[in-house]
């Protein structure tokens, strides 16, 4: 139980860090979107940043749900297969696909930019799929800690 609590706290802390990025990008007094010269295709900068913030929150929320769903499945639903352990990577990839889809939805349905449009798009994917990847690499239950590709090279606990 202690391990689960530590993992969940880790996920929340990581989420807060990513949430901080939204603040830096769109909410702070000197928003990064403005400093990086992201120009809205239509409407004012404030309207663009508000739309960006809303979509970023949606993507982050989807990513958090995907992360927690993966964690719950790995901790409580998966059973060690007998006689040979089976890979759960496909299930992990399905949740990753959900976060990527959320990113695409934000890019195509969210506010459009005429200049440097790749920056908010990158942010959607970083905040969605990136958060999911990092959170599952660092805080997956120990029995599936190396299911995320690359985890064995990054996780040493």
């Amino acid at each position, binding site marked *: 139980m202690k391990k689960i609590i530590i993992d969940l706290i880790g996920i929340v802390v990581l989420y807060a860090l990513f949430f901080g990025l939204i603040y830096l990008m769109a909410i702070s007094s000197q928003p990064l979107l403005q400093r990086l010269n992201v120009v809205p295709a239509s409407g004012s900068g404030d309207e663009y940043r508000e739309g960006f913030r809303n979509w970023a929150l949606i993507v982050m929320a989807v990513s958090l749900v995907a992360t927690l769903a993966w964690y719950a499945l790995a901790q409580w639903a998966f059973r060690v297969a007998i*006689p040979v352990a089976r890979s759960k990577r496909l299930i992990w990839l399905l949740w990753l696909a959900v976060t990527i889809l959320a990113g695409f939805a934000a890019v195509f349905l969210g506010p459009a930019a005429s200049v440097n449009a790749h920056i908010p798009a990158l942010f959607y994917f970083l905040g969605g799929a990136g958060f999911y990847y990092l959170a599952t690499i660092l805080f997956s239950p120990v029995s599936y800690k190396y299911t995320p590709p690359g985890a064995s090279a990054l996780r040493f606990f």
Partner: protein
Amino acid sequence: MSCYLIAVGGTGAKIAEATLHLAAAGILPSPCELSVLFVDTDEGNGSLGRAIRVAQRYLDCYGLFNGTISLFNANVNLVLRVPWSPIGKDTKTLRSIFAPTQVEEDVMRCLFTDTDPSVLGQPDPPPGEIELDLTEGFRARAAIGSAVWAHTLNWAQSRPFEQLAREMRDKRQNHNVKVMLTGSIFGGTGASGVPTIARLLHEEIGKDTGGKNFEIGLLPALPYFTYGDVGRPGEITADPSAFLANTKQALDYYEKRDYLKFFKAIYLIGDECSAQMRKPAVGRGDQTNEPHYTELMAALGIAHFYHAAPGEAGGDGGKPTGHLYLSSRENKFKLTWNDLPMDEGLHIAFEKKLRQLARFAVALRYCFEPTITSVYKDGAAHRAPWYIDFLKRKNKFDEDQNRNLESVKLYCESFLEWLMDITKPNTQGFETRLFDRTVFCREKDDRRLRLASADEFRLAGLENLFVDRQEERASLDDIWAKACDTKPPHPPLDGVARALQAIYSSC
């Protein structure tokens, strides 16, 4: 400490098998060097073959863990790879052993048949025991055994005994040497062999320097099993209905001849609920009486003897005031964990070690070993994080290591086969409440037991392996997770031992 176990006859071999399993579980003293000598006239005895196979499998695993865990901790060695037999290849009957003159043969006939020498003119009785093929054992005739032992056991000319005597003399210079002799006293080989060898040991070694650093223990098995007709009409065979009478006679004989005085401790083991053995046979490979829980009790007695401080197991200062150890259970028809005869202080630790080995054996056979093999062959190590942690990072798993894994798996299967037999009641109405054997074994059509298949195990699950120990319940997922969360020891072991150590510690 140097421990010796001289297992005489089929029952002695079965008790030795149980002792080897306790050694594997880490229930013998640590550090401990255990030398085992099997003695039997029937070299093809199935029980003996089985015990030697277990010993061999143990030896294949010994040294893998360098003492970092209790598994395979005792340094076991076989004094001989085959049982020592007092019967030669060319001399397998009383007549050929003694080569009697006519007068001596008449005396032998009087001793071994119903001939009455005071009645003249009787027809010659059938040769009976005089011509009996002794390579199938003494057929519960201790009188024949005693004659053969007395004639053939010679320290100077018998290699294992000469080697044993030399080893024991050397070892006792520096540390304590404990010798345990075990065998049944209701049959022929054990009843005659055990006291004869013990007396010789006592006279050859025990009397030197007043018995300092040298203790002999005795574990005679009283009747605890029986069997049906062996199917050899007209031949001389062991008669189970005579077991009790044989036992009484043997004990009387030992007592009157002062045999019991030089034993530091005597552990009498028997069971009033006689187990019905499945396959009656005279000898050779057919005589494979399945293991029985009484042998576990006996092995615990042996462990007690080895654990006892010098002099503690039987009186003080080597005086002939040895202790007599008897074990009994609370309920005649039920065997529980609390009935296992162990010292108060060690009971919980010993119990746990036995359960840990059982859980490890099941988990390894049904999950961890197939997974290691699968990852080794097919890759995708991410399926088993412990594989990456213990077998890939700064370590390697290759064909050599695969052989080590196979050795441990084979031993685990031997252990589970033993466990399934000792937990199977062979007496109507009897219940063994130690392990739930339905977790890892099934009954065949002929009522013999076999290890369960992977599918059968999946349905049963590991959680219910221990009976009456709910607080120790653990599923395979729990063990898997613990293994994934285990840190390797410092310095880490090499090869597959690193993973097995983590798995064992998680069980």
